[in-house]
C-alpha cells in the first residue's frame, strides 16, 4: 500500500469546493425536507380521507423506493415533460422530497406527543384552528422533534454523494474526477471518507446533547 501526501495536497483545493457544495446541498435539502415534511404531516391530520389517503400512499411510495432511482426519474423524465432545471436544483429537490417523507413521521410523532389537555384547553379558550396549531400545538411539537430532525440531517449528509450520479460536483464528484485525471484513487476517496466521519460524528454527538436538553 502506498500513500502519496502530494496527491492529498493536490486534491485539497478541489476538496474544499466539494465540501462547500455538499454543505449547500445539505442546507437547502434540509430546509425543503423540514418544510415539506410539515406539510405532509399536517395534511395527514385533515379530517378528509380524500386528502389523507393519497398523501399517505405517495409518501409511503417515496419512502420505500431508492433515492438514486427517484433522482434519475426527476433528472431524465422532467425534461421530457418540459420542466428543465439544473442538475443541482433537481438533486436538492430530490433529496429534500425523499427526506420529507421521513421528517413527516417525526412531526407526526411530535404532534401526537402533545398532551390531550393542550388541545382541550385550546378548545375551551375558543381558539380558532389555525391559531391552535400555530401558537399551541406546533411550538410544543417542534421542540420535541428537533433531535430527531437532526438525525435525519446527518442521514441526508450521507446521501449527498448520490448527487454525483447526475453530474453534481460535490465531494465524491470532485474525488472521482481527481482520481480519473491523476489515476490516484486511494488518496481522494480516503480523504472524503475521513471528512464524512469528521463531520458526521461530532454532529451525532451534538444531536445526542440536544436530545438530553430538549426531550424530557
Amino acid at each position, binding site marked *: 500500500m502506498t500513500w502519496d501526501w502530494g496527491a492529498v495536497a493536490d486534491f485539497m483545493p478541489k476538496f474544499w469546493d466539494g465540501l462547500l457544495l455538499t454543505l449547500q446541498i445539505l442546507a437547502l435539502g434540509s430546509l425543503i425536507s423540514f418544510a415539506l415534511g410539515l406539510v405532509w404531516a399536517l395534511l395527514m391530520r385533515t379530517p378528509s380521507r380524500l386528502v389523507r389517503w393519497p398523501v399517505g400512499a405517495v409518501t409511503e411510495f417515496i419512502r420505500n423506493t431508492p433515492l438514486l*432511482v427517484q433522482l434519475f426519474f426527476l433528472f431524465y423524465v422532467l425534461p421530457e415533460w418540459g420542466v428543465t432545471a439544473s442538475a443541482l436544483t433537481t438533486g436538492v429537490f430530490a433529496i429534500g422530497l425523499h427526506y420529507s417523507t421521513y421528517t413527516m413521521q417525526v412531526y407526526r410523532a411530535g404532534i401526537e406527543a402533545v398532551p390531550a389537555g393542550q388541545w382541550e384547553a385550546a378548545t375551551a379558550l375558543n381558539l380558532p384552528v389555525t391559531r391552535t396549531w400555530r401558537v399551541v400545538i406546533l411550538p410544543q411539537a417542534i421542540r420535541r422533534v428537533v433531535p430527531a430532525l437532526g438525525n435525519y440531517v446527518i442521514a441526508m449528509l*450521507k446521501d449527498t454523494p448520490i448527487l454525483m450520479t447526475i453530474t453534481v460536483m460535490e465531494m465524491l464528484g470532485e474525488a472521482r474526477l481527481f482520481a480519473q485525471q491523476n489515476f490516484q484513487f486511494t488518496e481522494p476517496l480516503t480523504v472524503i471518507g475521513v471528512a464524512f466521519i469528521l463531520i458526521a460524528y461530532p454532529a451525532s454527538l451534538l444531536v445526542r446533547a440536544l436530545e438530553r436538553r430538549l426531550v424530557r
Partner: protein
Amino acid sequence: MTSGLWELVLNGIWITVQLLVLSALVATAVAFGVGMARTHRLWIVRFLAGVYTEVFRGTSALIMIFWVFFVLPVAFGWQLVPLWAGTLALGLTYGAYGAEIVRGALNAVDPAQREGGIALSFTPWQRMRLILLPQAVPEMIPSFTNLLVELLKGTALVSVMGMGDLAFSANLVRLALQESAEIYTYVLVIYFVIAFLLTRGMRGLERRLKAGVGKQIGRTPDQELHRPETTGVGAAGSLGGAS
C-alpha cells in the same frame, strides 16, 4: 417495451435480490457480532466495537462502495468480483447500523433477567444465548425491517459501479428507448413491491418470534410497563413476590 428489454429488467431484479440477500446475511452477522461486543465486559472490546460502528455509520454507503471497488484492489491487491464487492460494502455499512439496533435491544432487556442468569451461574455466553437473545431478538425485528428496506434502497447504489442490478437495467432501457418515464415508473414500482413483500415477511417473523416468548405483536416495552395487572403472572416480579 420489447421482450428483450423486459429480460434485462428481470436480470436486474435477480441481481438486486441476490445482492439484497447476501448483504443482508453479512449485515446480520456483523450486527450481532458488533452489537454483542458493545455489551462485552472488557472495555477494550466495547471500545473497538464502538469505533467500528462510528466509522461505518459515519461514512456514506456510496463512498464505501467506491472505496471497496477502487481502493481495495490498489492498496491491498484484493480484486473482488463486483457482486462480492457490493455485498461487502453494503454488508459492512448496514451491519454497523444493525449493531446499534442489537445493542439497544440487549440493553432494553430487564436487568433482572441478566442477574437471574448470574445467580444461576450461567456462563456469559449461556446468558447471552439462552436468556438475553431470545428476549431481545423479537424487539429488534421492527427496526430490522426498516433497516432491510434501507438496505434494499442501498442496493441501487451498486449500479453506479456498472453492476447490472435493477437500477442499472433501467438506465440501459432508457438509453435503448430514448424515453424514460415509463421504465423508471416500472422500476420504482418493482422496488416498492419488493419492499412491501419484505415488510410483510418480517411482520410474520415478528409474530412467530414474539409468540415464542409469550408477547403480542405491537406491544412496545413502554406499553408493557403500563399493562394492567390483571393476572398474577406479570405482576409477581413487581410486587416482590418470593413465591
